[in-house]
């Protein structure tokens, strides 16, 4: 959710680039709806998102069999509750010609890793917009 919150924070920059953002969950439609609609953590204390209805800025997509996730090589790599039901989080950027131009897993390398991650995604979207 940190990635989503940071992206939501920079929503204006994404819109200025005329870019679209999609968030794919290898989960059923109900869980995808909950992911999109519930401001799970950040609505519980005072912060820039407290009054936002949706924390997730991008279009949330349900991929319950993990098909799209498998095409992109990120499925069934994460073990949660001893079940292979989660994606390994990963960003992809696609340019105006429909070519994949960037792929990267979040580093989760410190308390503010998501700031750098989203700055890189914005820069890659800038290149992809040319």
């Amino acid at each position, binding site marked *: 959710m*940190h*990635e989503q919150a940071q992206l939501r924070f920079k929503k204006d920059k994404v819109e200025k*680039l005329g870019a*679209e*953002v*999609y*968030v*794919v969950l290898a989960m*059923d*439609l*109900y*869980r*995808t*709806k*909950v*992911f999109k609609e519930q401001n*799970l953590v950040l609505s519980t204390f005072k912060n820039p998102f407290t009054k936002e209805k949706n924390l997730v800025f*991008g*279009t949330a*997509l*349900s*991929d*319950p*069999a993990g*098909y*799209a996730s*498998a*095409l*992109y*090589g990120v*499925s*069934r*790599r*994460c*073990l949660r*509750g*001893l*079940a*292979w039901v*989660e*994606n*390994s*989080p*990963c*960003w992809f*950027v*696609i*340019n*105006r010609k*429909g*070519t*994949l*131009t960037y*792929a990267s897993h979040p580093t*989760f390398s410190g308390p503010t890793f998501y700031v750098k991650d989203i700055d890189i*995604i914005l820069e*890659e*979207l800038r290149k*992809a*917009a040319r």
Partner: protein
Amino acid sequence: MKNFNKGWKERTLVEFEIVNSANLGALRAGLKDRNPFVRSIAARALGIRADKPSAEALAELVKADPEYMVRARAVESLGLLKKKPEAIELAKKDRNSGVQWVARMAAGQIQGDTDYGALVRKAYAAGIKRDNLGVAKVGKPAPDFAALTSDGKPFRLSTVLGKKPIAVYFAAFDG
């Protein structure tokens, strides 16, 4: 949550095969297997396959299985089957927080008319080929895929490709 890169293709293919093709009798027997991984995948597959006669056995697993992963998959399947609300309520108070969370999702799924299980079943029924696993590569055309938006509308990546720059994030629920 841990990441395991090795073997993901095999896990993906086996999962599709079990969900789509495993014998229902074998899956029902799998609920009583000694191996918790077998009980877990059997519970998940029976829910996706809409095997309502398994509801009683799944409810028993929710109540009594010593392994939380089995209880989680069993209550998840009761949500897909829209059966045994009392077992789902019980799981909301499970000693494991992961099971509690899955039970809250299942409690939401049994409300209303949407057949979430049918949507999952349809997604698996499309199948997958080994050659297609991990085909997305930087410098190559983005592979097309279909999905549903969170409000249930059909989506296909190819309908938006070539128009705008696009970022796609493959997410875990909380990451």
